[in-house]
């Protein structure tokens, strides 16, 4: 007796349906996820521990109706949960279809299992980075005091990127930026690969930028799982440029935040950080300028007052010099007439004296004392020897003269 394939498959369907009537909680890694008409088709896989060898494999489906109710329950994390590579815990019922074979019909997913798993992976990643001394490596790079040439890694469509751009370029301080945009996926399975590729090409253009900024808007915790990647963290740590992150979350830090030079909560916060850093530098420069001006003013004031002192001194010296000169001229002018007066009065006195002597020695004084003067033929006779007996002489006395004849000469 033989069975048709359909009969055989129908038998298996019944066996499975009878023996596995309840849905069961199963954990498995997702190898691949495909979406078609709102239904999610999952390739499930289990590998041997620490190996790539596959030891179990199955297919599962989330019907669009179930997906919608899961979305209401789990929220945005659901999309991230359903990424290749994720390990998920799900409630599923095995169903065998005569034509399509065995499929697990997913009814529910427990996100906490994946989160826990991811958290463990995250801790392990951090530990590895610590051992390799990579956690502080990028942070030890010197961040310029002024950040102007910025490489931004983000998704053009991400709201966070637009916020960042608006905040930075619309700043009220008038700072200008040269922003170069590098498109990367900020969610989904290609985040790690795309971000690493862009960072590696950026590392070649180190001279063109002051800093690298990695941003994305807010998102569910699981969305951020891509930023916990060890390879991505290592690439950031090894970057020759300081990396600033604003990965849009409030609660936990991603591993990327830990290795970044500076991590901020949101893209807007990164923009603020950059603006404040530039503002700080500008105000330092302004203070220095002000200080320089004050010092210059003080020096000028000092010099000016010193000059004023010198001027006063010169003025004083000048005035006293003029005074001394004027006094000297005054003195000479006053002294000259008195010198001259003395000179003239001396000359007069001398002449007076001569006059007196002349008068004293003159004949009038002799006549007064009774002497006479004798003249012979108009010539004065001073000795007897000039006379002869019988000579006619004139004798002058005081107040008159007379004629006489010489007789009896005695010698």
């Amino acid at each position, binding site marked *: 007796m033989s069975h048709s394939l359909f009969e055989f498959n129908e038998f298996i369907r019944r066996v499975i349906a009878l023996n596995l009537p309840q849905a069961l909680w199963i954990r498995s890694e997702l190898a691949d996820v495909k979406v078609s008409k709102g239904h999610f088709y999952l390739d499930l896989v289990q590998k041997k521990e620490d190996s790539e060898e596959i030891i179990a494999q199955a297919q599962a489906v989330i019907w669009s109706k179930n997906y919608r109710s899961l979305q209401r329950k789990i929220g945005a994390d659901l999309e991230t949960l359903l990424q290749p590579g994720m390990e998920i815990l799900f409630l599923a019922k095995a169903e065998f279809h005569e034509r399509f074979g065995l499929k697990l019909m997913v009814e529910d997913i427990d996100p906490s299992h994946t989160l826990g798993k991811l958290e463990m992976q995250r801790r392990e990643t951090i530990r590895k980075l610590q051992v390799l001394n990579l956690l502080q490596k990028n942070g030890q790079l010197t961040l310029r005091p002024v950040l102007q040439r910025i490489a931004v890694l983000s998704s053009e469509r991400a709201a966070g990127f637009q916020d960042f751009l608006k905040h930075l370029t619309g700043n009220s301080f008038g700072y200008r930026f040269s922003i170069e945009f590098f498109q990367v996926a900020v969610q989904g399975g290609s985040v790690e690969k795309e971000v690493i590729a862009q960072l590696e090409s950026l590392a070649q253009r180190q001279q063109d930028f002051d800093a690298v900024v990695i941003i994305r808007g807010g998102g569910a915790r699981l969305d951020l799982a891509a930023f916990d990647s060890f390879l991505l963290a290592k690439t950031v740590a090894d970057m020759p440029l300081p990396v600033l992150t604003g990965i849009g979350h409030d609660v936990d830090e991603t591993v990327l935040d830990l290795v970044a030079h500076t991590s901020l909560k949101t893209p807007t916060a990164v923009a603020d950080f950059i603006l404040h850093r530039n503002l700080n530098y500008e105000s330092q420069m302004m203070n220095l300028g002000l200080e320089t001006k004050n010092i210059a003013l003080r020096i000028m004031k000092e010099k000016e007052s010193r000059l004023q002192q010198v*001027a*006063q001194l*010169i*003025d004083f010296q*000048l005035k006293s010099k*003029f005074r001394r*000169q*004027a006094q*000297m*001229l005054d003195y*000479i*002018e006053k*002294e*000259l007439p008195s*010198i*001259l007066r003395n*000179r003239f009065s*001396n*000359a007069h006195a001398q002449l007076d004296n001569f006059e007196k002597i002349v008068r004293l020695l003159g004949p009038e004084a002799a006549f007064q004392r009774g002497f006479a003067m004798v003249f012979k033929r108009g010539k004065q006779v001073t000795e007897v020897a000039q006379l002869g007996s019988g000579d006619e002489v004139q004798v002058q006395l005081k107040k008159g003269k007379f004629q006489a004849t010489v007789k009896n000469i005695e010698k």
Partner: protein
Amino acid sequence: MTKPKSKITYESALKELQGIVSVLQEEAVSMDDLSEKVNRAAELLKFCRENLRETEEKVQGLFE
């Protein structure tokens, strides 16, 4: 003593003036030269006064 006036400096004029005053005081000038010396002294005195006044006017207010 026959130097042209324009070439006299204040200092040389003052020096000459003081010389004349001192020879006059010592009565070392003969009466014949007296009037010439006194005229010269008056001339030098006038020159010094004018020079001093001009200089003073020139520097007036420069350092106030």
